[in-house]
Every structure is written in C-alpha cells, then in structure tokens.
C-alpha cells in the first residue's frame, strides 16, 4: 500500500472525529444521563407521593367531616323527632284538657241547674246564680252582650234560673220537641239576657229551627248570635252555619266571603279548618 492514500484516510478520520464529537456520546455520558433521569423520576415520585398523601389527608378530612355532619344530622333529626313527639303529646294533652274542660262545663251547667232547682224548693235559702242571671231584662229588649262573672243576682222564688231553663230546654231539644225547646231558650234570653248562658240559649234557638228543617229561620238566628255575642263560644259555629246556608242557597260568592271571615276571625277554631276546606273545594 502506498503512503499517499494512507495519509488521506488518516486525514479524513481526523476530520470526521471532531465533526462527530457532538453527536456521538460516550457510555459515561449515557450513564450520567440515566442517573439524571432517575433523579428526576425519584423527585417526581416524591412529589407525587407527597401530593397523594395530601390528597389522602384531604379525603380523610372530608370523610371525617361527612361523618360528623351525618352524626349531627342524625342528632338534629332525632331532636326534631323528639320535639315533634313532645309537641304532638302536648297537643294531645291540650286536646284532652279541652275535652275535659268541655265536659266539666257541661257538668257545671247541670250542677248549676240542680242548685237552682234546689233553691226553689220550699224553705230552701236563696242561692245566688253563679252565672249572673238577672231577674229583669234591661231596657232595649235584651240585646245586651254576655257578661261573664256579672253581679250575682237571685232568681225569683219559684221561677227557674237560667241554667235550669237551659237544661230543661236542652232536654226538650234532645227529645225532639223543637218548639217547646225554643220557647224555653227564648224565655231564658228574655228573662236573663245578661246570663253567661244567654248566648248558648240564643244559639240553640237557631238549632231548634234547624231541627225542624226551617233553614231560613235558623240562619237569621245564627246571624243574630254572631252580631250579639261575637266573642261567645258558639260565634264561630254560628258564622260557619251562616256560610253553609248561603252555600246551600246558591249564593256562593257570599258564602266564600263568610268562610273567609270565619278563618280570619276565629283562626284557632275547628270551624276555621272546616271553612278553609270549603274555600279550597270551591275556588
């Protein structure tokens, strides 16, 4: 081989090696590179695991909060249930008390009637009427409002007292003698207009008409009860009955107005519930 070509190849190699130095890495370079990559990966994993821990912590905290909230919700629901139960029990007790009060009132009326009856027996001392029955009606035809606890007065000897009259008339009404009962109730209202049972008697005058099927007469007396005794225990019933009469007569707008009046004036009464249902049924 000649020296000329050998020199040419060596020169070419010398030229190529520096030219390729940037492209061809050595094994060391690769190792360094791999180490660098491993470091980066390790750091990344470290960061990821920290983040995962954080996420886990957050999730655990959320779960704990949820548990707390759930427990709190359960406690609140239980408390609400207890309260509701207590309220229901209280409501039932109130209703029971109301019923017993009503029963006691009826028995009291009977007792008063018995007392008045005994007072009229010969030789018995005069018993003051606890219901404040006056002997003489006031001027103006007995349109006075009821006065609970009014000045006690004495029924004239031999004459039945207001409670006695009420009981007698109620007995007649229960027996079906509406006319006789009405006469008794009217006597009571006339003779004892300031008695606390006068509103009741006036109401039962209307009931006696209703028992006879005289709707218009009954309605006029129901209106009288509302007008004369607007705070009496039967005022709500009388007003509601007036509304029913209007409804049955085909005067529906007027009936609606009366039912609305019942709801407005006597919101806690049973009649308010009944009237409310009538308003819903016939919008």
């Amino acid at each position, binding site marked *: 081989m000649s020296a000329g070509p050998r020199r040419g190849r060596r020169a070419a190699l010398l030229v190529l090696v520096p030219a390729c130095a940037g492209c061809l890495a050595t094994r060391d370079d690769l190792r360094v590179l791999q180490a660098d990559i491993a470091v980066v990966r390790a750091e990344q994993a470290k960061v990821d695991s920290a983040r995962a821990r954080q996420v886990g912590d957050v999730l655990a905290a959320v779960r704990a909060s949820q548990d707390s909230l759930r427990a709190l919700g359960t406690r609140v629901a239980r408390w609400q249930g207890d309260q509701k139960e207590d309220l*229901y029990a209280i*409501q*039932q007790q109130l*209703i*029971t008390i109301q*019923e*017993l009060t*009503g*029963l006691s009132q*009826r028995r009291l009326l009977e007792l008063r009637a018995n007392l008045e009856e005994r007072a009229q027996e010969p030789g018995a001392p005069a018993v003051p009427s606890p219901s404040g029955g006056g002997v003489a009606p006031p001027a103006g035809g007995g349109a006075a409002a009821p006065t609970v606890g009014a000045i006690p007065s004495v029924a004239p000897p031999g004459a039945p007292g207001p409670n006695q009259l009420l009981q007698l008339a109620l*007995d007649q009404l*229960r*027996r*079906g003698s509406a006319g006789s009962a009405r006469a008794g109730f009217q006597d009571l209202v006339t003779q004892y207009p300031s008695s606390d049972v006068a509103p009741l008697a006036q109401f039962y005058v209307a*009931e006696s008409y*209703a*028992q006879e099927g005289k709707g218009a007469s009954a309605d006029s007396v129901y209106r009288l009860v509302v007008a004369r005794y607007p705070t009496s225990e039967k005022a709500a*019933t009388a007003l*509601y*009955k007036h509304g*029913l009469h209007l409804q049955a007569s085909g005067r529906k707008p007027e009936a609606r107005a009366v039912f609305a009046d019942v709801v407005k004036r006597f919101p806690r009464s*049973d*009649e308010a*519930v*009944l009237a409310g*249902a*009538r308003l819903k*049924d016939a919008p």
Partner: protein
Amino acid sequence: MATVALSAASAAPAASAAAQTPPAGVRIGLTYEAGVRPGVFVLPIRAAAGDSIRAIVQRDLDFGDRLTVIGGDGPAAAGPAGRPAQLNYALHAALGAAALVELVPSPRGWRLTLHDVARKQAIDTREVALPAPAFGEGWRQAVHRMSDDIEEVLTGTRGAAATRVLFVRGRRIWRVDSDGANAQPVSEAGALSPAWHPSGTRFAFSQFGEAGTRIMVQEWGGVARPLPGTGRGLHITPAFSPDGRTIVWAAGEGNGTDLVARDEGESGARPVTVGRGADNVSPTFSPDGRRVAFTSGRSGHPEVYIADADGTNAELLTSFSFGDRAYRSNPSWSPDGRAVAYQSQLEGRFQVMTIALRDRATKQLTSDGENEDPSWAPDGRHLVFVSTRGGRRDLWVLDAESGRSRQLTSGGDARMPAWGPRQ
C-alpha cells in the same frame, strides 16, 4: 205507637172480665198491652212447599220477638180444598192464640188472611206472589216480606225478617239472611268494614291495596269500583247517609285519621271532623241525617262522640272520667234516633251497651263472653253483634227489649256486622 189489632183480653180470666164491665154502647179502638206478646197460630198449609213456608213464617214471627208463636198443628181440620172447614176460634183462644195466620193457594199465588180470634173474624186479607223457583233466594225473601206484613198488621210495627246482614269473614265480605240462611261471600279478598247503601242495592267497604286502603262500592251482581280520591293512604269505615247521597269515611295519611264526606256529584271530599292528630273513625248517621256519631281518640283514648254532619257541634257522648283506661267505640245509631249502641270495655272485656240521646242514660245489653261491633236492625229493636259466648267469634242477634238472643252465624271468624235495610 201503632197498636195491636187484637183483643188480648179474651184470654184473661172471666172473673177479671166480670169485674171490669164495659160501659154500654160501641167502643172503637185497639188494645195494646206493653210487654205482652200476643199469641199467634200459623195454620198448617196444605199445598206444595206449604210446610216450608209455614216453618219460615213461624220462625220469622218468633225472631221478631213481638208475638208468641204457638207451635203444633193445632185443632184445625183440613177441608176439602186445603182450607180448614171452619176455624174453631174458641179452641184457638183456649190455646192462647189471639190471632191466626191462614195461607191458601190462590190463582195469583197465595192468599194471606189474618184472623182476630177474640172477634172471630178476618181482619186482613191480601194476595201474595212468591217468585219461582221455590226455595230460591228471591222466594225466601218474599216469604220473609210476608212475615213482616203479618207482624205489621198484628203489632203495628214492621218486622225485619226481609233483611240481610253483611259481615267480614276471612278478609272477605259475606252476606247472610236475617234468619241465618244463605250465608255466602260477596266480595274479593282484602275487604273490611262493610256498609249498606240505604237503598239496599249496593254496599261500600274498605279494601287493602298496595298503595293503602281504599273505599270500594259494589252493586249486587256487579263489580266493586273504587271511590274516586281514595287511592292513597288510609281509607276505612265507610257509612252512607240515610238519603244515600253522601258517603262518610275515615281518611288519613300522616298523624291520625279524620272523617271526610263526599256528596253525590261532588269531586272532592270535605272534612267532617277536626281531630288535630287524633283518630276519628266508625261514623254512623242519625236517622234524619243531621248528625253523626263516631269514635274519636281526642280525649286521650277512644270514646264515642256526636257532631253535626257538617262537622260542627262535636261533643262527647259517652261518659268519660279522667284516668279511665277503659274505652268505648264502634257506635251504631238506632233507627228511631233515640239511642246509640256501642261497645264498652268493662273489666277488660267488651260488652254491648246503649246510651239514650235524651238523658245519656246507659244500659248494658250483654255480659256473657266478649261482645262487640253492634249494628241495629231496621226495626229499631234488634241488634247484631260479634260474640264469643259460643266459643268462637260468631254473629248473634239480641232483642234489646227482652234481652233474648240467638246465634246468627256459625263457623267462627265473623267480624264487623252491618244490618241492612228492608228489602
């Protein structure tokens, strides 16, 4: 009160009759002695199915508790045409009969003649048709109606033989004749609380379904149809008003149940009671339809209340004392409007009682076994109720005046009877 067209005095001792010499002249009037059951003799019937007709009439008159039925064939001798040749009034009077019932075949069916033994003459004659086939349901009802006719003529008060009773057995509604015959189921399963329509042509009941209980109305021979608006929640214990145009029942979805009413032609139901969480069930109308009696727990435990049918004037009817644990329920308003029957706990057992509307006086009608769920017959004298006195829960009928009782059903498991109107 209507009177008896009989002279029961004919059987009175002669000495007594002599002591009370009637004044001279003509006296027009009828004699009735309260508590006295005049004797009646049903003459043997010489015709096809005659023995059965006679047996049914005798039994009906006996069950009516207003007449004493004299048994046996009596002294009558049959004539050639099946009719007694000559009625021996004196001999029947000696047997204690104040009236004779005579039935003979006629071209239009049967001729029913009632005789006054004391006056020795017929007092009523009428033609009666009995639908074919003999012994069928319609035929039996026609014989029962004839018995009621007889009782009406003789006592002035129509009997309740031609009536039926609905009751619950095995979660189905059953129907039985007033004499205990023809007991048969008339509804599908899951039915409770039967109630008659006053026309007797249909009945209502509550039926259990997947969404709750609903009110069904069923015509005889037809299918049961749900009452609109009773698809969800609890709907039980229906009752028709006496004019049949309103149905009232107990409805509830949450706390408590309230009575609601639905008028014919109306789409919705309106409240009748305002229970405010209490249970209000088992309504029963007064005969004039103006009032309703029902069971309510508003006083702490069940008691019987009455209220106007529009919901007003609610008041406690039965006696109640604070601390009293016994309760009263299931009212039934008597057809004469004077009393309400109900069940009351006495020493832990239910007994049937009545309370007078006039003075609130109570009367205990039963004491043997457990007795509950009373329902009045249309004659206003008899009650049907559930009793365990025979060892099982069966229906019994009680005469509220005499206290006499008889068993209506057998087989046990009978509940919730409802005595229907006259057919």
